[in-house]
């Protein structure tokens, strides 16, 4: 199976057309398989006692961050569905929704990046050398984010930045309320844009599916709750985090 598809340019030379969308099914299958394997492993492993949600509530995500997360999540899902459904044969007027969602995502990501870099504890998401010991040392606990969470975030970051970057270039090629499309990108450049946009989309399909899966897993569900309502319990905190590396505030309400 080809990774990319090619077409002939205006003079009959081979140029990149985009990613081969057959890979969509492969990615979906692999993601599904990974989830099944994980489910099996988790079923075999003895269930750890789950920390209690009761007690003092500690702030994990403030309102801003939660809003950004959900804006990004919704726009990403809209982008994925509007991008992928027409490819697999569902005809609808997708492009306008797609680029509007793309602009929303771009704006949210931009604000998030600015906020995370300049106004928040940027280091909390940096993978430090000691984080790498996490999987190997029993009892070693992470700061605010586990290595797995950081890994997921960084992979997502990379893919989203690529998809946004290429998406913006492609956005410049279409009609919008603000400009008539120039439609003037070199054909080979255009091909690269579509390939990168497609590859990152495929990655996002897989990662998003995994992200949703983990968000729904019973032992991780408190993180999902924290992304909705902002808090984790003291018990959840002490079971999963090293207070030396992250000390959250108490929430106003309990």
């Amino acid at each position, binding site marked *: 199976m080809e990774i990319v598809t090619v077409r002939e340019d205006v*003079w*009959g030379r081979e140029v990149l057309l985009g990613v081969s969308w057959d890979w969509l099914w492969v990615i979906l299958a692999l993601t599904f398989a990974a989830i099944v394997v994980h489910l099996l492993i988790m079923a075999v492993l003895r269930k750890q006692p789950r920390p209690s949600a009761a007690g003092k509530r500690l702030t994990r995500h403030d309102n801003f961050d939660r809003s950004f997360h959900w804006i990004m999540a919704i726009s990403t899902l809209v982008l994925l569905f509007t991008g992928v459904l027409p490819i697999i044969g569902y005809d609808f007027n997708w492009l306008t929704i797609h680029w509007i969602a793309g602009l929303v995502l771009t704006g949210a990501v931009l604000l998030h990046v600015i906020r995370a870099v300049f106004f928040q504890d940027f280091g909390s998401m940096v993978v430090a050398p000691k984080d790498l010991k996490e999987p190997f040392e029993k009892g070693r606990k992470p700061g605010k984010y586990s290595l797995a969470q950081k890994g997921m975030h960084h992979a997502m970051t990379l893919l989203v930045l690529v998809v946004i970057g290429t998406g913006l270039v492609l956005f410049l090629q279409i009609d919008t309320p603000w400009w008539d499309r120039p439609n003037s990108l070199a054909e080979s450049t255009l091909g690269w844009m579509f390939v990168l946009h497609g590859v990152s989309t495929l990655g996002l399909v897989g990662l998003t599916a995994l992200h949703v899966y983990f968000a729904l897993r019973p032992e991780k569900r408190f993180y999902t709750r924290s992304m909705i309502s902002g808090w984790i319990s003291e018990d959840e905190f002490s079971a999963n985090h090293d207070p030396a590396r992250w000390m959250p505030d108490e929430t106003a309400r309990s």
Partner: protein
Amino acid sequence: MSNEYLHIGKNFVPPDIYGKVTGKARYAEDYSVDGMVYARLFTSPMPHARVRNIDASAALAMDGVLGILTADDVPAVEAPNAAILTNEPVYVGDPILAVAAVDEKTAENALKKIKVDLEPLPFVVDPLASLKPNGPSARTEGNVYPSEMQNLQWSAEDLNRFQQGEEPTGAAPTEWSYGDLEAGFDNAAVVIEESFVTTGYAHMSMEPRSVLSYWRGNKCYVHGSTQSQSFVVPFLAGMLGIEQGDLVYISEYCGGGFGSKISAYPVLGLPGYFAKKLNRPVMLRITREEEYYIGSARVGFQGWMKAGFAEDGRVTAVDLYIVQDLGPRRTGGDASSAGGAISILYQPQAMRLRDVPVFTNTTPRGAQRGPGQNQIAAIFEPMLDKAARELNLDRLAIRRINAPDSSATLNADQGPVTSAYMDDALALGGELFKWSERVQRSGQRRGSKVTGVAVGQGYHSAGASGFDGLVRITPDGKLHLHSGVGNLGTYSYASTTRAAAELLKCSWDNCVVHHGNSSLHLPWSSYQAGSNTMFTHTRANHVAAMDLLTKMKDIAAQTLGGDAADYDIADERVFKASDNTRSMSYAEVAAKAIELGGAYSGESYPEDIHEVTQRAVTGIAGSGLVGVAKDKLPKRGTAPGLAVAFCEIELDLETGKHQIIDYLAVGECGTIVHPQGLAGQLRGGAVWGFGMASLERHVYDPQNGLPANVGYYQTKPPTYLDVPSHMGWAAVDKADPDSPVGARGIGEPAMGCATAAVMCALSEALDGHLFNRTPVTPDMIINHISDGPQAASLMAINTF
């Protein structure tokens, strides 16, 4: 049109008609020989490129694929001449290689497997883009071709002025002039100054130029499609690198050439080389799309013109500046011909032509019916109308006051004409068309429709000299008329031979026309183009018949006694004028000629006849009484072909569409030789002229050099509902003194006058608005009426 002639001025059935109407006519593509294989072309996808590598291994490995032919297998030619195949394609569709296989489908499938690695080179589809500072050159050797390859770039200011339609200041490599231009403009009551664009468009030959070639020993047989017959032989032999005598060239029918098949075009030589390489007969069928690539197009003009008119309408001075769109190959006489046409049609007292012939990476250009004359007719005639309006003169009157007569002069050297009776044509047409009555309704509006009544004129030089005639009477009494004239669709291959039948007073039933195959002993001929054949070959046939007549009388005198001068001919007998019982039939004379030998039967021949004719005479030597001669009759100047067209149109201001309600063409081409043929020329030329004025399309995308016009429906030649159901014709029918039968040619002006008439009528219907551009299309008219901008910039070319 009744006259004392037996044949001249009478209709007849040309012998090729039967084949054409029954479908038995065989064009090059209809031939098949044992072992024949099929070739297909790989043509350039890029407008300008260099071949870096050709990998045909996958194609050659296919079953049934026999080989490829590349530029390395054919002679290289010097730029800007056209090679059979090239490693530096200069337009989209330029043939790079050919592949041959046992059948066409295999060859076609093989094409897809050939990998040609091309390096794109700079390209240009609008001459002005090449003239700008650091503009691209269509050819690596240079961008202009005054008569040698040169590089020319204008300053940004020069270019800008030209693009704004102002008086050009950019350098022009070619210039000619006569008279005092400044004085001419000083003496003018009205000066009209306009910029203009005429789009070049495809020749659109109905029969694509398919070719079959095979070898028998050293002899190469070529079945091709050309307008000319004998004229092709030396050029094709040269292209194939063989002796003329080793070439058998067959082109009995030509399904249209229109200037694109005058002589040996490059692809005509391809199957010869391929057949030699493969040792198999090779058929190369050309597709419709390929015909649009290699089949040539008219030269386009981007120009500026200033014309001065005296109070009485006389043209005092014309200053003409033309940038020619040459395509990528050697051509370029159109600008000078345009100047020549103005110089004769309006007899300006002073004139200047400046010419900038620029290469573009568009389809190769070549002479197309009235090359130069017809483009300028479309532009100058509406300008003439504008002058008439400003001077308050009738539009027919302004033409009559400028009309050339037999004292007319033309071109830079202001040479003479053989004769000219343009005023007669204008007067006759005006009367037949009821000009003075109809012109009253020009400009009148009914609902959304406006009437335009107009007159247009066309010119082309129409006659050459110095070619050969060959006739023969065989012992069966038949007069064999050997015609080296090609069968381009005008019937002139046959109608010109009637000058010999006329002189020899021979019934047409007893005449046999030989043509279309060089092995049928055909004499040297002019090319069948430039409206020249009627004049040129009635003369050549006449002198050959004179030679035969002299010999016949000699033989009669030798046989029956007395002096040759005592003998006359009638009813296919030669007899003593004083005693018509002493006579011989033509059959008897022919038998006697064989007996006598020598010049009588073609055993010897005049030294001044062309090599082609010499071989033809040798071929028929001993088979009868042979008349052969080179035309050395006096010719005192240019033989002009002149035509006038009158038309009435209705232009719908809401749709931009016009309908030609009525059309009349008047030929001024000397004596009418073949009325039906003349009618066909006047009407056919008109249809083409309508196309040039408002329909025919030539579009290139400047971003990638791709042509949009690669099929009939895309190029839009007029259809039967785009032309009036009735088109009238007439002719002045006054003999030209330098033609033994009084005839001159008409082909090209027949089109130019129609283009001019429609352009003028459109202008009339729009209150005198000049588009100064061909074609004028509905979108342009709608944009004009709605005060919107035109889509194409003022001087852009190849945009419709």
